[in-house]
C-alpha cells in the first residue's frame, strides 16, 4: 500500500508539473515572421503599389482597354488574346480589380489610417495622405462598378455584409473625406509619410493640391447629373493654384528599369511583341491630323508607314499598328491624375460655364495648353507639337466653333490623352455625353453580345457569392450608373 501511495503521489506530482509546463509547452502559437504592430507607411507602401500594379495589369489596363475600345485585341491574329465576346469580361478580372480596391489597396490604407489616428500624438498628416489615396481608390471603384459599399465597408465585425451605397452618396462621401483630409493636414508637423511617399516625398502642400484636384475631378463627374455641383466647381476654379498647377505636380507612380520595378505593362510583354493593337476608334481621331503622339502611342510593323487601327475584336493583320513600345517601356510612369487632364477639365468647365460664366477665350487657352502639355508629357516631337497646336486645321480654335463643337473637341482631346489610361478613358467616354452622344462614338465590338454597349464592370463574383446585401437585381454590364446619363 505504501508503495502504491508513492506511485500515486509521484503520478499526481507529475500530472501537476506537466499541467503547468504543458500550458507553456503549448503557448507557441505566435508567428515569428509577422508583426502585430507596424508603422502605417509600410501599409501605405504596399497599398499604393498593389493598386498601381493592378491598374496596369491584365485585369484593368488590358480588360478595360478592350471593352472601352482604347486598345484592340487583334482577334485571332493575336498570339496573346484571340477573338472572344469582349462583353464576357473575365470574372477573374472583375473580381481581382475589386479585391484591390477593397482589400489589398483599400483595407491597408484603412488600417494605416486607423493606426495613424490611434497613435499618440495623432499622426494627422499620415492619416490625410492615406485618406486622399483612399478617396481616389473609391472614386475608381464607383466609376467602374457603380453603387459600392462605402459607409459599411472595411468593418468586418460590425458589418460582415456591407450594404451598397448609391453612387451619389459614395461620391459625396469622398468629397467629405477629401475635405477631412485637407483639414487634417498639418504642414508644421514632422509626423507624416515622407520617405515612403513615392508621389510627393512628404510635401504636404502638394498633397493638399492633390486633394483639391481629386475633388475637382469628382465634381466634374457629378455635375451632369447633379447641376448643383457647379457651385463647388466654381469655387475651385477661382483658385486654380490650390490644385495641381504644373506638369511637375502630376500625380504619378514612377517605375524604373530595375528588375521587378519596371512598369507592370512592360512586365506583361517584356519587350516582346505585345500582340495588342491600335484601336480603329483612336487612329480615326489621330491619323487624319497626324497627331504627334502617334509614334509614341503605336509602333508601325516593318515596312508600314501609316498607322492602321483595327476595330474591337476584329482580326488584325501584319499591317496593323501595334501598341507602342514607348508606352510599354520599363520606366514608363503610371499617371493617376495629370496636370493636362486638369487643364482640359478646366477648359471644359469654362466652355460649359460650370460654376463660372461661359468663357471660350479662357477655355481655348486652357485647351491649347492642355493639349500641348499632354503631347509634351508623352514626349512627342516638340517641333511637331508646336506646329500641331498652332494649326487650326489640326487643333481647332475653340472660339471659332459652336459651343457644342467646342465641347466635343475638348472631349476628343480628353479621350485621346487618356488612351494609355483605359480606366479613366472609359469614365471620360461615359461622362462625355448622354447615351448615344458620347465622344467618341463607339459601336458594338464584333461578336459581342448584341444589344447596348458595355458601360461598367458587373459586380465582383466574390461579392455576389458572399454578400446578401448586393443590389437586387444585380446591374448588368450595360446598365448606366448614376452619373452616366
Amino acid at each position, binding site marked *: 500500500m505504501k508503495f502504491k501511495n508513492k506511485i500515486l503521489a509521484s503520478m499526481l506530482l507529475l500530472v501537476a508539473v506537466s499541467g503547468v509546463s504543458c500550458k507553456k*509547452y*503549448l503557448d*507557441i*502559437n*505566435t*508567428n515569428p*515572421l*509577422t*508583426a*502585430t504592430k*507596424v508603422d502605417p507607411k509600410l*501599409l501605405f*507602401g*504596399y497599398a499604393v*503599389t498593389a493598386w498601381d*500594379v*493592378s491598374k496596369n*495589369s491584365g485585369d484593368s489596363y*488590358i480588360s478595360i482597354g478592350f471593352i472601352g475600345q482604347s486598345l484592340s485585341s487583334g482577334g*485571332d491574329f493575336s*498570339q496573346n488574346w*484571340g*477573338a*472572344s465576346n469582349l462583353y*464576357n469580361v*473575365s470574372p*477573374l*478580372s472583375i*473580381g*481581382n480589380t475589386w479585391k*484591390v480596391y*477593397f*482589400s*489589398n489597396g483599400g*483595407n491597408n490604407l484603412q*488600417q494605416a489610417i486607423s493606426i495613424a489616428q490611434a497613435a499618440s500624438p495623432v499622426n494627422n498628416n499620415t492619416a490625410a495622405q492615406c485618406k486622399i489615396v483612399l478617396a481616389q481608390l473609391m472614386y475608381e471603384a464607383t466609376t467602374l462598378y457603380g453603387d*459600392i*459599399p462605402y459607409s459599411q*465597408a*472595411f*468593418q*468586418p465585425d460590425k*458589418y*460582415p455584409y*456591407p450594404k451598397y451605397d448609391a453612387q451619389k452618396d459614395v461620391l459625396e462621401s469622398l468629397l467629405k473625406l477629401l475635405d477631412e483630409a485637407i483639414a487634417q493636414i498639418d504642414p508644421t508637423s514632422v509626423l507624416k509619410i515622407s520617405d515612403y511617399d513615392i508621389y510627393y516625398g512628404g510635401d504636404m502642400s502638394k498633397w493638399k493640391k492633390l486633394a483639391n484636384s481629386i475633388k475637382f475631378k469628382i465634381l466634374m463627374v457629378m455635375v451632369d447629373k447633379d447641376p448643383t455641383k457647379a457651385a463647388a466647381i466654381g469655387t475651385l476654379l477661382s483658385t486654380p493654384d490650390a490644385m495641381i498647377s504644373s506638369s511637375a505636380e502630376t500625380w504619378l507612380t*514612377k517605375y524604373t528599369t530595375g*528588375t*521587378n520595378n519596371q512598369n*507592370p505593362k512592360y*512586365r*506583361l510583354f517584356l519587350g*516582346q*511583341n505585345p500582340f495588342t493593337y491600335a484601336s480603329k476608334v483612336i487612329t480615326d481621331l489621330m491619323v487624319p491630323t497626324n497627331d504627334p503622339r502617334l509614334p509614341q502611342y503605336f509602333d508601325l510593323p516593318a515596312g508600314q508607314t501609316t498607322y492602321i487601327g483595327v476595330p474591337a475584336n476584329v*482580326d488584325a493583320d*501584319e499591317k496593323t499598328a501595334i501598341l507602342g513600345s514607348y508606352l510599354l517601356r520599363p520606366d514608363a510612369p503610371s499617371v493617376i491624375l495629370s496636370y493636362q487632364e486638369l487643364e482640359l477639365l478646366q477648359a471644359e468647365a469654362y466652355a460649359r460655364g460650370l460654376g463660372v460664366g461661359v468663357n471660350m477665350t479662357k477655355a481655348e487657352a486652357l485647351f491649347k495648353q492642355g493639349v500641348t502639355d499632354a503631347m509634351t508629357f508623352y514626349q512627342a516631337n516638340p517641333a511637331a507639337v508646336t506646329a500641331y497646336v498652332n494649326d487650326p486645321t489640326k487643333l481647332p480654335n475653340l472660339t471659332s466653333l459652336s459651343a457644342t463643337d467646342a465641347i466635343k473637341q475638348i472631349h476628343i482631346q480628353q479621350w485621346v490623352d487618356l488612351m494609355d489610361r483605359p480606366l479613366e478613358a472609359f469614365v471620360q467616354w461615359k461622362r462625355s455625353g448622354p447615351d448615344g452622344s458620347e465622344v467618341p462614338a463607339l459601336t458594338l465590338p464584333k461578336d459581342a453580345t448584341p444589344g447596348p454597349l458595355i458601360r461598367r464592370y458587373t459586380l*465582383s463574383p*466574390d*461579392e455576389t*457569392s*458572399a454578400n446578401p446585401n448586393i443590389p437586387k437585381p444585380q446591374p448588368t454590364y450595360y446598365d448606366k450608373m448614376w452619373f452616366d446619363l
Partner: protein
Amino acid sequence: MKHKLLKIFMVCFFCTASMAFAQNRTVTGTVTAKDDGLPIPGVTVKIKGTTTGAQTNATGKYTLSVPTGSTLVFSFIGYVSIEKPAADVVNVVLVPASNQLNEVVVTALNISREAKTIGYSSSTLKSEDLTKARDANVLNSMAGKVAGVRINSQSGTLGGSTKIVIRGVNSFNGNSPLFVIDGLTVSDNTSSGGTVANNVDFGNRMGDLSSDDIESMTVLKGAAATALYGSRALDGAVIITTKKGKKGTFSVDINSSVRFDNPLVLPKFQNEYAQGNQGVYANTQLNGWGPKITGQSVNQFPNFTAGSPQTPLVAYPDNVKDFFQTGVSAINNISFGGGDEKSDYRVSFSSANEKGIIPESSLDRYTLAVNTGRNFSDKLSSRFSGSYTNIVSDGRPAQSANNQNAIINSVYGLPRTVDINALKNNVVDPVTGVQQFLAPGRLGNNPYWIMDYNRNSNSVDRFTGTYNLTYKPVTWVTLSNTFGADIYTEKRSLILRKGTAGYLPGQFTKYDLLSKQVNDDFLATFEQNNLVKDFKFKLLVGGNINQRFNQTNQVDAFNLTIDQLYTYSNAASSTATLGYQKRRLLGLYGDLSIGYKDYLFLDVTGRNDWTSTLPVDSRSYFYPSVSGSFVFSEVLKDKGFDWLSFGKLRASWASVGSDLGPYQLDYQYSPTSTVFLQYVDANAIVFPAGPIATAFAAPRTLPNSTLKPQKENSYEFGTELKFLNNRIGLDFTYYHSNIKNQLISITVPPSTGYFAKVVNAGVIQNSGIEATLNLVPVKLKDFEWNINVNFAKNNQKVKELLPGLNLYSVASGYSGLLIQAEVGQSLGLYGGQFSRSPDGQYIIDPTSGLRVVTQGKRLGSIYADWTGGLNNTFRYKGFSLSSLIDIRKGGVFFSGTVSGLRTSGLAAETGGDRSQLIVDKGVNLVNGAYVPNTKAINAQNYWSWIGSTTNTEGSVFDAGFIKLREVQFAYQLPSKLFKASFVKGIQIGVEGRNLWLIKSHVPHVDPELNFFGSGSVGEGVEFNSIPSTRTIGMNLRVSL
C-alpha cells in the same frame, strides 16, 4: 488489483495444497513455430478449463505443474491454438494461422491484434502485394487493391506525387491521411500543386519509401480505427511496419528489376493543316489554323525572315511522339538479415535509378534501412528501426495553363509542320548563341531548350528513426516507450536560362526546406485473461507528445548577368522569403478491450488532445470511440453449419476532432515582397519598389480567435464471412460520418476589406459501402486460381455551409473553373456550361453560330460513383500469373490539354475537310421560340469556341475508366535445383504497370491526371500535365 493479488494467492495456495494432496506432475517443453522452426517466446500455456497457466520464456521453454489427466492449451497470437494431453515433456509446434480467424492486424499505435477481435474495418497489404510489379512510389502499389482507398498518381513526372483518399474527403481544406512507420508519425508533405502559372510536381514524401523494406501496410479507414491517433487521423491512417530480421541463419535477399516506360496516352493530332489564321499561313502562329499542307514553300523554322531560304511545308505526324523517349529504371534491393533468441537485425539497401520519358529527366534514390531488436532480459527489450534516404532528381518539368516554359505546352502545341529533329538540332543559333524560338518575335520556347537548360531539380536527405523500449515488470503489464523523429531537408531549384521566351533576362528560384517531426508515445498495457472466467481484459493507457516544425527559405533571383551562372551575386536582384511553422500536440489516451469466450469483443477508447494551434479555451478536446465484434461462427461451431467457415459481425462508433494550422488566430501584418499581377504572376515580386524598401500587408483572411476543433461523428458496421472452407470470402462494410465545425476560410465580401474569414461552419457527410469478395474457384494440388474483387461506393454530401451560403469554393483553376462545395451535393466542378433549351438542345447564338454559355454552373461531381478492382491470380507449381484491373465509374474531369489542342486546331477532330462549314446542332432562341440553328461557321471558329476555357463544359468529360493496372508473371525455380548450394530460392518475373487504358471517355489524355496535386482537395482537373506512363519490366529475386 487487490482482487488479482488474491487470485494469485489462491492459485498458489491451491497449487501448494494440491501438491500435497493430489497427484501432480511437472510438465516441461518447448514451443516452436512451424514456419521457421524457431522457438516462440510468450506462448500462453494453460490447463484447459482453468485459469492456471504459464508463458514460454525467451527460448520457447515452459514449465508448469499440472494435475494428472489435464489437457494443455497452447495459444499465441497469429498461430492456431493447439491442445495436448499433459505428459512429462510436451513439445509443441504451432502452425501459423492461415485464415482470417487468427490473422494479426497492426492497429493504431502499432498494437497487434487478432483480426477477429476488431470491431471496425481494416485492410492490410503484405509485402508481396507491394513488391509485385513494384512502383517507385509505394502508394501507387495500393491502387485498386483496397476497397475504399483511392490512389491517384498525379502526373507522369518522374518521382511525381500520388494522392491517397481514404473513404471520401472529409474537409474543405485538405485531405491528408496519417502515415505511421513503426510507431512514428511521418510526413507526407507535397509540393501542393503549385499555381496555374507554374506547377512543378516535386513528389510527395511517402514516395521516399522503399517498398522492399515494408512488411505490411494496414489501412485504418474509419474514425473508430484511428481514434487513438486523435486529431491527426481524421482522414484515416496508414500504418506501415518495416521488415525485421528473421530468427535463424543469416539470409540475404536480392530483388532486382529493370523497367521501361513510355507514355500511356498521347494526343491524336490532325496532320493536314499548317500554322496560321483562317487558312492563311503565318509563321508567327503556333497552331494548326493555317492552310492545308501541300508542300508549298514557306519561311519556317528556323528560317523565319522573308528572304531567307524557303522550305516546303510537310506534316510530321510523329513529331510529338518522337519527343518522348523510352524511360528506363533499375530498382534494386539487397537485404541482409538474421537473428537469434536474443537479437535480430535486418539491413537493407535499396536503389532506384530512373530516366524518364521526358528527355533529361532523371531520378536517383538510395535508401539504407536498419531494423534491429534486442531482448536484454525476459523483461526488457528494445528495437531500433530507421532509414536514411537520399534522392536526387533533375528535369521535373513545369506543368501549367499559361506558361511558356511548360514542356507539354511547348511540345503538344507544336505546329504539325515542325520536325522534332530540326528542333533538336537547332536549339541555339550557332552564330548569335540565342535560342532558336518556335516562331519569330522570340515566341515559343524550343522544348529542347526547356529540357536542356530550364530543368527543375530537387534533392532530399531524409532520416527517420524510432527507438522502442519495452519493459514487462510482470507478465500482465507492459510498459513501452517509442521515441522517433522524421527529419528531412529538401533543396529545390527552378531555373530559367537567360534567353527563355517569357523570361528573357533569366531567373532562378531556390528553396531550402527543413521539416522536423518528433514524436513520443508512452504506453502502459495491462492484460488480464484470468480475472473473470471466460473474459479477457486489456487496458492500455498512454501519452503522446508531438512536435512538427517546418522552415522554408526561398530565394528568387532575377536578371542574370553571366549566362547559366546561377548564383545570387550574378543576379541584378534577389528576394528572399522565409517560412516558419511550429506546432505541438499533447495527447492522453486509454483503450479498454474486453473479450468474452473468443467470440464477443468490445473496445472502448478515449483520447484527449491539447493543441498549440487552437485558442487556449478550446485547445483541449476529447474523443471517444466504441467498437465491438461478434464472431458468430464460434457460437455455431459444431451445430451443422459446416459450410460457414467463419462469420463475424462488427460495429463501431467514434467521435474525433482535428485542429488547424498554426498562427491563424492573431491579427498579423505580414512582410511581403509580392503583389498580384494578372498574366505575370499571382505573386509577382515588386518590393523593394523604389523608396518603398519593405512593405507590410494586413491579412487577407480575417483571423478568428474563437475557433473550435472540427468534430467527426461516425459509425460503421460490417460483416466478414467465409464459406466452404475459406473458398469464398466476403467482407462488407457500411459507414457513415458527419464532420461538423469544418475549419474553413469562408469567402467574405471583399468589401469588408478581407477575402476570407476562418470560421467553424459546414457539415460534410460521407457514407458508403465497401465490399471485398475473395474466391478460389479452382484449388488443385498444383493449380490454384484466386479472384479478389473489391468495390467501394462513397456518397459525399455537403450537408450545411453557413446560413445563407450555398456555394463555397475549395480550389480554383483558370477562367472561372472552380471546385466548389454546394449544399446537398458532393464537391463538384463548376464553370461555364452550354445553355440548353427545355428539351435539352444546345442554344446557339444565331449571329455567331456559337453555343451560348452560362457561367458558374455545376458540371458534375469530381468523385467517382464507385470504384472497383478485379484481381486474378493463377498459380501452377512454380508459376504465377496475376493481373489487376482498376475501375472507376462516373465523376467528371476537365482537361486543359484538350482545350488547348482544340483551340489551337491541332487535335485530330479539328482536322478533316475544313472547307465544310459546321452547323452546330442546336436551336436559336428567336422571339421567345426555339428554332433549329442554321448558322454555318468554319472549323476554326467552332473549335476555338468549344475548346475555349471560358466554356468549361467544352473540355469536361466523364472521368470513368477501366485500366489494366498490373500484370505480373513469375516463376519460382524448383528448390531441388539448388538444394546443395547456398541459394535458397530464385524467382524470375515479368511485370507491367498501367499497361492498358481499356476504356476512357477523355480524348488525348489519361483521365487520372490531376493538376492540383496530392495536397489539395481539388481534383479532376488537368492543365498540360506530364502524360502518365506505361511500364514494363523484368524482375529477379534471389534468396541466399
